[in-house]
Every structure is written in C-alpha cells, then in structure tokens.
C-alpha cells in the first residue's frame, strides 16, 4: 500500500504497554485520514456512554494522506475523542511538523488508552515507544514544554504535541498545541489532562513511499505556483484577521457577547490595523507555501513583549465580542491562550458571557477576586485588562470565576442559574456546548442550520454554510427550500478537506475555482499519484459524506436527538437593534423547517437518524448494525395510472358506491365488503377512497409473500389468494387506507377498477352526484391549477 504504512500504534497509559493494529486497504479508502479516520478510531475504541474525562475515553490521532510528501498544505493531522465540552464527538485538526513527523515515524495514527498515575510523556522514536516521566514539565506553557523536550533530546527533529496548564487543570476549553499550531476546539486538552498525558513527542526518520512520485511532484509544483498568486493574496498579506472589517460592514461581527453585529472600535482591532502597527512576521505551517499566520508583537506599554498568532476567530472572540478595542490587550489575551493551552474562541466567548452577566448585575466585582486583584475587578465590556486576567484565571481555575468559566458557557450558565435563580443561559452562546464562531447567524440563515446540525457543535470550519450566505449566492436574510441541500453540500465539501486533510485556503489554487468541479478532479489526481488508487470526482465527493456520517453515527450512539440540533437562545429570540442585521432572528418555525429539509437532503429520517440502507451504501455495514434505523422505502403516491377519484365538493356520503361495489364483487349489499370507502374528511366534507394504483406501489413492496403484483399497463393491483396469508402488511403500507381484509377469508381485497365489467367501475356509473370519475394524478393537478388560476383572476378583477 502506498501513502500509508498500514499500521496504527495503540498506547495504554494505565498498563504502560503498546500494540500494533493493521487495517485492510478498503478501510483506508473509506476513511482516508484526518478527522474522518480519527473519528472512526473513536467509534471503534470508545465505549458508548463513557465519561469524557475517564480512562475509558481515548485520544485518536490520525495522520494526513499527503503529510510528508511535497503536496502543498498537506502537513496536517486529525485528533478526536469524546468531547468533555459537548459529550459528543470532539474532533480537531492541527498542522505543521508534528503531522510530518507522525507520518515519517511509520504510523498512520496513534490511539491512546487508559490513564497514567503520574505525568507522562510518550516518546515515539520511529518504531520504538518510550514512557517518560513528565513531572518536571507539569505547569509549563506549551512552547516552554516543546522547547524543554527538544533540549532534552538535543534534537530539533523531535516534534511535540502537548498541553499547557489549562489541559492539566481539566479546563474544558483546553487545547493541544504543536509547533505553534493547535488542535483547538472541543476540549481535547482536558482529555489529555485527564490521562496525565503532558506530551507526545515523535522522531520520524523514514520517508513516505508514494505510487507515482514524478506525477505527484509535478502536480504539487503546479499548485505551489498558483498558491503564490492572487487566490491566496489576502491570506498571505493580511491573514484571516482582515475578516474583522468585512464582518463588521455586514453587521455580522459578534460584539459584546453577540448583542450587536457592528463594533464601533472595529478599525482598531482589524487585520489592516494589525498589519500596520503590530505585525512582526508572517509564518507558515510545514508543507505550506501560503503562510497565512500573522504574528502580532506588542513593543511597549503594559503588554510589552506579548506575541500572539492573530487569526480572525481568535480576534473576534478576544476583541469585539468582549467590547475591547485595544489591539495590545487582544494580542496579550491571544498569547496567553496560546501558551496556557486554551481555545481562543471558546475562551473569548465564555469571558464575554461573564462580562454580560456583570453588565446585567448577575455578577459583582467580588466574584472576580484573584491573586492579582484581591478585591476583584470590574469586568465590564471594553475592559481589556479584565479580559486578559480572565484568560489566566480560567487556565488555572483560579478563584470562583476562574473555576466557573473553565467549564465553558453551557455548564457555567447552568451552575449560575441554579445557584442564583437567573436565566443566564439565554446569553450562553454555544451549540451542543461548543461556543459559537465569529459569524452571527441571525442573518446567515443557511449557516444557521449548518451550525445547529453541526456534529461537533458551534463550528464554522465543519459547516462552511456561511459561504453561500455571505457571498450573496442566496438571500442571507431569508430561507427557502434550497437551504437544506446547501447546508449538506457545504459541510461535506469542508469534510473532504478536513479528511485528507488539506488546508482549505488552497481551494482556489487547483483551477482558479473553489467549487467541487474546480477542485475534485485535481484532488483525485493527487490521491491517485500518492496511493495508486483509481479515485474520480464521485469518489472524492464521497470522502466528505463518509467523514460527516461517521461523526454523526458516533453522536447517535451517544444518545443524540433532534433537540440537540439547536441554536443559542439569543439567535432565536433577540434581534439586534442596529446595523444591517437589525431586526432579524432565526424563528423556531424557520429552524424546524430548515432541520426538516436538511435531514431530508442528507437522506436521514425526520428525526435525524440514519437509515441502515444509507450506511450500507456508504460502506459502513458495521455502523449500520449498531445505529442504523430501518426505514421502509415507501414512495409517495404519484402515478401515471388511472384510479377512481372522488370530488369532495360533490360527495354527500350516501355510500351508494359502497353498496354497488360490494354487490358487484360479492353479490351482497354489505359495505364492509366494499373496495371503495366513504370517509368524513372534515365536519361537512365527505369523500370516497379506493386504490390509487400508485407507481411502485408500497403495498406490493411491503408484501413479504409476493402475493401482490401490479399490472404494468393498468397499474391495477392483483392479489394471489394462494400466496396471501392475511398478514396485513399491505394495509399498513397503504397511505390511503384503500385495502381491506375479507372478514371471512382473512385475505386482502382491493379495487380492481372493475376490469371484468364491460362498462368499467360500477361505483362511478351509479354515483348519484357524479362525484366519482376515472382520472390520473396529473389530470387532477392540472385541474386544480386551473381552478386556482381562475379564482385568482376573479379576485384581481
């Protein structure tokens, strides 16, 4: 097998032992790498229902298919475990040298089980594994830890992923850091902390064998050239923080805990301002020719010396969303998060929740006591020093507030509401427990369902449904029937990149177009040159659907229900007062509808569960066995065939049709034996129902004994009395209640349009009100449209 080693390393921290697992090639073709492979490993190794911070949870790291090859932006790996923040799948991506070292060490992934008694560092030296004491590293920051380990080995090729004090203290928004990059979201750092795993270090000295090195090199070179052009110019020059002003102009910039979408101080915390006043350097991940990471450096003042990697998502959370327009405080807060091992997004949003609680009198200065400020401090919006101090308090769980906020917004608000009888959950901006990203979804209606249904919670990277909204491909202020498919399509598009994994910033560099048609054929070529497989457009497209499905399956096994696909209270109940997004919320009716059409687009049930057939179709038979639901495919009754239809405006419910039918078929006047039934559709509305001769008739499909057959010319259903055993599955399957059981013979009976009568259906012949006719669905629909048009014309007139 090319591109992979075929081996996974299992590490048991409790027993201090390791073992090797191999997987068949088909498995690799299904799960590829990155977040998909890591999530699949979670599926295989985590006992459902386990406490995320218990030894039963596992840490799964999965390499990238292109890591260690020349493919640009392929130096990434995926990490997953059960999230201590959400209780569902927690998956993250990180990039750079750690990913390359993992690949070169000859492992496709690592699965860490159990819990150590003492702080431990796992050192992987190609195929050798060593458990090393890490007690001297406890308490160190992330870069301090990496440097200390590099010094110990006197080898700068030893790459380390580690946690900071936040992870050690089981802060639920803690991350894992390597080479200055982070597996940032869903609290992976706390899982490491619960296992007393301070660091995993890898020295990988091997090469990566690929199927067609010459082709791979040429393809990589072409992409590399394109990556130096205008497609990535924004990222190279300003970085993602240039989105601050974009979002602010559109009224989407989270401000003061999402109370507003326009921040008066946005210019002072913009990417443009950073570029002009604080930019120290631009750096890249390993294997990346783009180099988007803008390093901000504070030269003087109270935060002199602070240096942080400033991304848009870090910046909105630790500036506008806390009402802070002091770029120096923001850089310091981001630097704190980086070093202490905190997710900047969840940290910023949790702090902004605390600030709103302070603004509204739930918290007082006393609640913010800490060593640095023994009397506490005023945690009002705009107080940059309060924001900076709270990052430190959270990481160390210092004082009442530090300990509270370390739990994230969902748990913190629940605790406060219980303690103080408040309703601060209304300001807790999370989805499934994961804090929301830097796009206010009240006027990003497609994105709203992408977020609500997001398998890891409030995340823009996994959904990407903001794209059609903010680019004007759809009206972002309203909803329509296309949004379910759009949300599905964008999340599966993103999942392809997260699974390979490749950085999404390369997406325009294949052909100039970022859509599937522009990227998938090129990605297929890269996969084939690496592995020797025969992937095409469709195979690449399936990567995304499978990746998303395995994560969703994990959540279902953990007890997910439709109600878990929610939005924060504020986005559904509280419109903004100013700016382009003023006046909008995502109403409960809108979200319900969006969920319906999203689940439908995914091929799931109305409850959001996955049918067995769907999982089998995706090559996930074992998953189907565990969580797949049986959903009989019952097509709706559309048909080209004729049937007896009743006009309810003419029908008076006299039941003459029933008497005539029973007499014609059985020689007796007995309405119980009729194959047409008169029913009351409304207080004053009667109608009669007979077989609708559905195409692909559900009754025929449902019959387990194949007693029912459908005439391909007339559509009439015939029942073979020798095969029918009266099981009544056909009755269950019929949406119209048009089949009955003969009380004497216990055999099914159904209208056959009186095919044995020369003058056709006798019920039509004898109906005194001419309410019955032989017609087709198309003819009825055409008549209804004509009627509607006429009524409208009359109204206009």
């Amino acid at each position, binding site marked *: 097998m090319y591109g992979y080693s075929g081996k996974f390393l299992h590490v048991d921290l409790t027993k201090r032992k390791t073992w090797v697992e191999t997987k068949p090639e088909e498995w690799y073709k299904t799960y590829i790498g990155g977040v998909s492979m890591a999530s699949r490993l979670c599926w295989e190794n985590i006992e459902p229902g386990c406490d995320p911070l218990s030894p039963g949870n596992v840490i799964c790291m999965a390499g990238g298919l292109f890591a260690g090859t020349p493919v640009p932006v392929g130096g990434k790996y995926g990490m997953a475990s059960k999230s201590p923040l959400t209780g569902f799948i927690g998956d993250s991506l990180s990039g750079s040298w750690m990913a390359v070292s993992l690949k070169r060490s000859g492992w496709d992934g690592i699965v860490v089980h159990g819990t150590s008694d003492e702080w431990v560092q796992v050192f992987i030296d190609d195929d050798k594994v060593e458990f090393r004491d890490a007690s001297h590293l406890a308490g160190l920051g992330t870069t301090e830890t990496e440097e200390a380990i590099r010094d110990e080995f006197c080898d700068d090729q030893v790459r380390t992923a580690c946690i900071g004090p936040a992870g050690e203290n089981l802060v639920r928004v803690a991350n894992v850091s390597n080479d200055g990059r982070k597996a940032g979201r869903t609290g992976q750092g706390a899982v490491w902390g619960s296992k007393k795993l301070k660091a995993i270090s890898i020295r990988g000295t091997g090469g990566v064998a690929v199927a067609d090195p010459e082709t791979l090199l040429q393809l990589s070179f072409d992409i590399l050239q394109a990556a130096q052009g205008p497609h990535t110019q924004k990222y190279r020059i300003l970085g993602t923080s240039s989105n601050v*002003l*974009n979002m602010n102009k559109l009224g989407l910039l989270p401000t003061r805990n999402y109370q507003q979408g326009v921040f008066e101080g946005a210019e002072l915390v913009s990417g443009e301002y950073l570029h002009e006043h604080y930019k120290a350097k631009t750096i890249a991940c390993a294997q990346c020719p783009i180099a988007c990471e803008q390093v901000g450096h504070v030269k003087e003042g109270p935060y002199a010396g602070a240096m942080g990697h400033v991304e848009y998502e870090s910046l909105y959370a630790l500036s506008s969303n806390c009402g802070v327009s002091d770029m120096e405080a923001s850089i310091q807060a981001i630097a704190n998060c980086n070093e202490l091992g905190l997710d900047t997004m969840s940290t910023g949003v949790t702090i902004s929740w605390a600030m709103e609680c302070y603004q509204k009198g739930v918290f007082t200065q006393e609640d913010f006591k800490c060593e640095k400020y023994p009397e506490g401090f005023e945690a009002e919006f705009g107080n940059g020093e309060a924001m900076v101090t709270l990052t430190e308090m959270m990481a160390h769980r210092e004082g009442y507030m530090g300990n509270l906020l370390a739990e994230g917004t969902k748990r913190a608000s629940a605790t406060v509401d219980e303690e103080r009888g408040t309703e601060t959950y209304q300001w807790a901006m999370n989805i499934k427990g994961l804090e929301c990203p830097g796009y206010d979804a009240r006027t990003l209606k497609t994105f709203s369902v992408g977020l609500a249904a997001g398998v890891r919670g409030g995340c823009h990277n996994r959904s990407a449904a903001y794209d059609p909204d*903010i680019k004007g491909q759809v009206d972002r202020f309203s909803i329509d029937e296309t949004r379910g498919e759009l949300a599905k399509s964008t999340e599966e598009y993103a999942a392809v990149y997260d699974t390979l994994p490749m950085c999404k910033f390369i997406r325009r560099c294949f052909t100039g177009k970022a859509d599937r048609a522009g990227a998938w054929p090129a990605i297929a070529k890269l996969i084939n040159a690496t592995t020797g497989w025969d992937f095409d457009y469709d195979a690449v497209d399936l990567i995304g659907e499978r990746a998303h499905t395995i994560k969703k399956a994990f959540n279902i096994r953990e007890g997910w229900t439709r109600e878990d696909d929610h939005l924060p209270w504020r986005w559904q109940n509280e419109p903004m007062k100013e700016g382009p997004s003023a006046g909008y919320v995502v109403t409960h009716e809108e979200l319900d509808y969006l969920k319906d059409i999203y689940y439908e687009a995914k091929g799931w049930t109305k409850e959001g569960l996955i049918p067995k057939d769907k999982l089998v179709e995706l090559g996930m038979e074992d998953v189907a066995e565990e969580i797949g639901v049986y959903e009989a495919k019952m097509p709706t009754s559309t048909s080209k065939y004729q049937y007896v239809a009743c006009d309810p405006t003419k029908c008076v419910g006299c039941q003459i049709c029933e008497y005539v039918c029973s007499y014609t078929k059985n020689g007796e006047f007995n309405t119980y034996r009729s194959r047409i039934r008169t029913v009351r559709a409304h207080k004053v509305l009667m109608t009669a129902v007979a077989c609708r001769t559905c195409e692909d008739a559900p009754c025929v499909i449902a019959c387990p004994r194949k007693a029912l057959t459908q005439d391909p010319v007339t559509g009439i259903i015939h029942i073979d009395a020798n095969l029918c055993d009266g099981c009544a599955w056909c009755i269950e399957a019929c949406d119209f209640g048009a089949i009955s059981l003969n009380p004497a013979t216990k055999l099914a009976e159904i209208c056959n349009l009186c095919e044995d009568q020369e003058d056709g259906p006798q019920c039509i012949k004898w109906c005194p009100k001419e309410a019955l006719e032989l017609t087709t669905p198309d003819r009825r629909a055409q008549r209804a449209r004509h009627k509607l048009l006429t009524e409208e014309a009359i109204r206009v007139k």
Partner: protein
Amino acid sequence: MHIHLEFLGVSRLVAGTKEILLEVEGGTTFRGIVRMLSEHYPEMVGDVILPDGETLHPPNIFNLNARQMIPESKMHQSPNDGDRIILMSMSAGG
C-alpha cells in the same frame, strides 16, 4: 451622481486610503466602476482586478450598502446616487 467607494483588505493597502467619493455619470455600471479603479489604481490590476481591467479577481467582490453582494452576473447593473459600495475580499475562515 456620487458613489462612496470603501476599500477593505488588500485593496485598501493598494489604494492607501479607506474610502473615496466617485463622481460618475448616471447609468454607470458596476463593471464601469471597476474600469475606473483600474485607471486610478493600476497596481490593483493583477491582485484585485483581473488583467482585463474590468473584472474583479475572486474572491474580491462589491457589496452594495452592506446588504447585497454584487456577483459577476450582476456587474452590468448600476448603483444609484449616494450608494455605498464596499470592495471586500470575501474569503472566510480562520
């Protein structure tokens, strides 16, 4: 008529200003405004504007009055007097 044209991102760095006031004839299209930009700021051609001088280089895009994006298919339309056009690079992420 007068149009306010605001620059964000790389276009602001190139233009060296946050905003300009354009005086244009009634009926001037959005594409016509791109042509004017190419003439005023030739450095934008390449990074922000395609070499034809009249097409914005994706993901650069016009936004009208903070409400409506103007995709390529609508560049033949015209703004109204007093409208505010924002030239932004709409690649999200981070």
